[in-house]
């Protein structure tokens, strides 16, 4: 980390909790958006994120997957504090966020940075790249010269030679280069956590691979922790250590990426995984693994929210909401069919291993 600015307030915040303390702990995160309720409409709430809990170990990547509208991006914005959660607690390296005796919102935001999907829309078209990257450091009181030096360091680190690129404007870059600038800008604040919300989704495949390699390198060099949101399951498998599957604002399965991808327990996870193209023209898919779209989060189904598209749904699924239960070493799943003692005919009756 010698390449980074010598400013002491820009060194990474000290590792307070030790290596075993998760970088982020999220407890019961909830966000409901009110809609309607105007002149003659009936008020309703969109249950965008409805009680989400997870933790992210240090220097690991948590992948978040799910269909559109499942609450992936809302979760990211809540973590970034771009919108306020209705409920829930965020703990950064052992310190609660925005509470007395905890880490202040200002310090938290410096420690957690975000890269968005639309690389063009997230850059100011009238700022040169060096000004863009230096903006954050400048805003937190770093002198101009030091901020510029830092911007150049960061640009070099993401593979954009500052001699060539520092004074260019966003429209002069390709999509992949712009996304590198966004990464440089996020890193300029010297964060500990990087939230990547579909950060490679808009890129061409060959460029996507370049950016994924860059992200892997940066993670190692700077000891970063990633939250990687994507709808591309192969990319998530590639980059993640743990993966969290969301459906209609709930976590349905979370665990080690290998466990979840090789032995998915939730029927939704299995459907999602087998929706990937086969990459083999001789073995084409014949049946769509999941039919239809997710139901509206305004009035989600009772009990298990996935039951309307689930081929194992039984009466118990409509009556009770399945809790997120630990199955296996590091895998939690919210499904009656695999939870012992749930009353589902496929579940074993008492304690013991399922499946």
């Amino acid at each position: 980390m010698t390449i980074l600015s010598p400013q002491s307030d820009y060194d990474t915040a000290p590792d307070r909790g030790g290596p075993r303390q998760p970088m982020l702990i999220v407890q019961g995160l909830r966000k409901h958006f009110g809609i309607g309720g105007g002149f003659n409409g009936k008020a309703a709430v969109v249950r965008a994120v409805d009680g989400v809990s997870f933790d992210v170990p240090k220097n690991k990547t948590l992948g978040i997957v799910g269909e559109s509208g499942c609450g992936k991006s809302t979760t990211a914005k809540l973590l970034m504090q771009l919108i306020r959660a209705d409920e829930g607690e965020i703990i950064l390296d052992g310190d609660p966020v925005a509470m007395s005796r905890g880490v202040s919102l200002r310090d938290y935001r410096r420690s957690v940075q975000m890269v968005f999907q639309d690389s063009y829309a997230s850059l100011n078209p009238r700022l040169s790249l060096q000004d863009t990257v230096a903006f954050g450091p400048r805003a937190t009181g770093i002198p101009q010269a030091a901020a510029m030096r830092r911007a150049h360091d960061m640009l070099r680190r993401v593979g954009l030679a500052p001699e060539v690129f520092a004074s260019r404007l966003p429209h002069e870059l390709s999509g992949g280069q712009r996304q590198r600038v966004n990464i440089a800008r996020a890193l300029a604040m010297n964060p500990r956590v990087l939230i990547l919300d579909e950060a490679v989704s808009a890129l061409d495949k060959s460029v996507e691979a370049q950016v994924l390699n860059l992200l892997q390198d940066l993670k190692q060099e700077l000891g970063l922790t990633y939250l990687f949101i994507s709808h591309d399951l192969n990319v998530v498998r590639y980059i993640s250590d743990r993966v969290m599957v969301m459906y209609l604002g709930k976590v349905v399965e979370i665990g080690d990426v290998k466990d979840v991808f090789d032995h998915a327990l939730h029927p939704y996870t299995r459907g999602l995984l087998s929706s990937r193209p086969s990459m083999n023209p001789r073995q084409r898919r014949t049946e769509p693994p999941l039919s239809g779209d997710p139901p509206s989060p305004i009035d989600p189904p009772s009990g298990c929210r996935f039951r309307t598209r689930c081929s194992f749904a039984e009466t118990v699924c409509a009556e009770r909401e399945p809790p997120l239960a630990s199955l296996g070493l590091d895998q939690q799943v919210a499904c009656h069919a695999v939870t012992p003692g749930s009353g589902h005919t496929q579940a074993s009756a008492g304690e013991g291993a399922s499946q």
Partner: protein
Amino acid sequence: MTLAATLAAQESAQESAQESEQAPAPAVAPPPLVQVENLRVRIKTPDVDVTLLHGLNFSLNQGEVLCLVGESGSGKSITVRSLLRLLPPGAIVEGSIIVDGIDILALKPAQLRAVRGPLIAIAFQEPATSFDPAFTIGYQIAETVRAHEQVSWADATRRAQDLLELVQVPSAKRRLDAYPHELSGGLRQRAMIALALSCRPKLLIADEPTTALDATVQIQVLLLLRELQRELGMATVFVTHDVGVACEIADQVAVMYSGRFVEMGPIERIIDAPRHPYTAGLLGSVVTPDVPGARLEPIPGAPPDPTALPPGCSFEPRCRVARPACAQAMPAFTQIAPLHQVRCVLAASGAAMGDIEK
């Protein structure tokens, strides 16, 4: 599925004729439905003068799916749009495009309107912006039917409902009265396909129709397109940047780079044994489930600016196996096996990709 039945009945005569010809004696194949020769597109306005397509040749038989694969800016969309002459002002199109015996480039505006829909139809990537937000789905489909056929509104609306059922929109009758924004992305794309099919086209163009959809919905729409295409016997030109999607739907694949085909052949051959370094690189950049943690091998650099193409092979600056000769002249599009063409001096010389790479 009533419409499917009627359409299938209509096509059955043609199909049976085609089958009987195909099965015993492929030597007397029917003339291809689409025949494109030396297609060149140049955009010339006071501000820009750039050639986007540099002479494309391809043909497509009835019932076949050709996938155009390539990255942004490679000319995929320009190619399919020139089939419909949906190009920006200032575009100069040269070469010839014959579809079902009709010379598309020679058509007058009124004739062109008559061809768009019944002969060639297109489903766009973004159904949200392709529908008019101020009219219902049912109205827009029925309107299209009435523009081409002498039918009453009632009949046209009934046909719209049949079409929505054909593309598996649940409760189709109710959706006729839905506005585009009231449908989910997947349903909107199905409605877009229904609109494209409304005049029973012989050639369907699908310009990245599943790119904006979730994986779960993408596979549904791909399977639907494959089924419809088989049922209705349409030829389809399918544009995608996703090799995985091509694997699910293509018969033939044409890989595009900087406004040229660099490799064309049956999908199985291209996937198993790509012969152009770009194709190999593209396949190598696809993140597959088998390689967690391993380092990806992306193609270095970025595609060239179309206004300043390199003098030789346009892939030469990024090519790992480039030879001095590659910078001199653009290699010819050479046939290296039946139906398999490659634009690369190394592949044409007979060496396999594995031998070339050191």
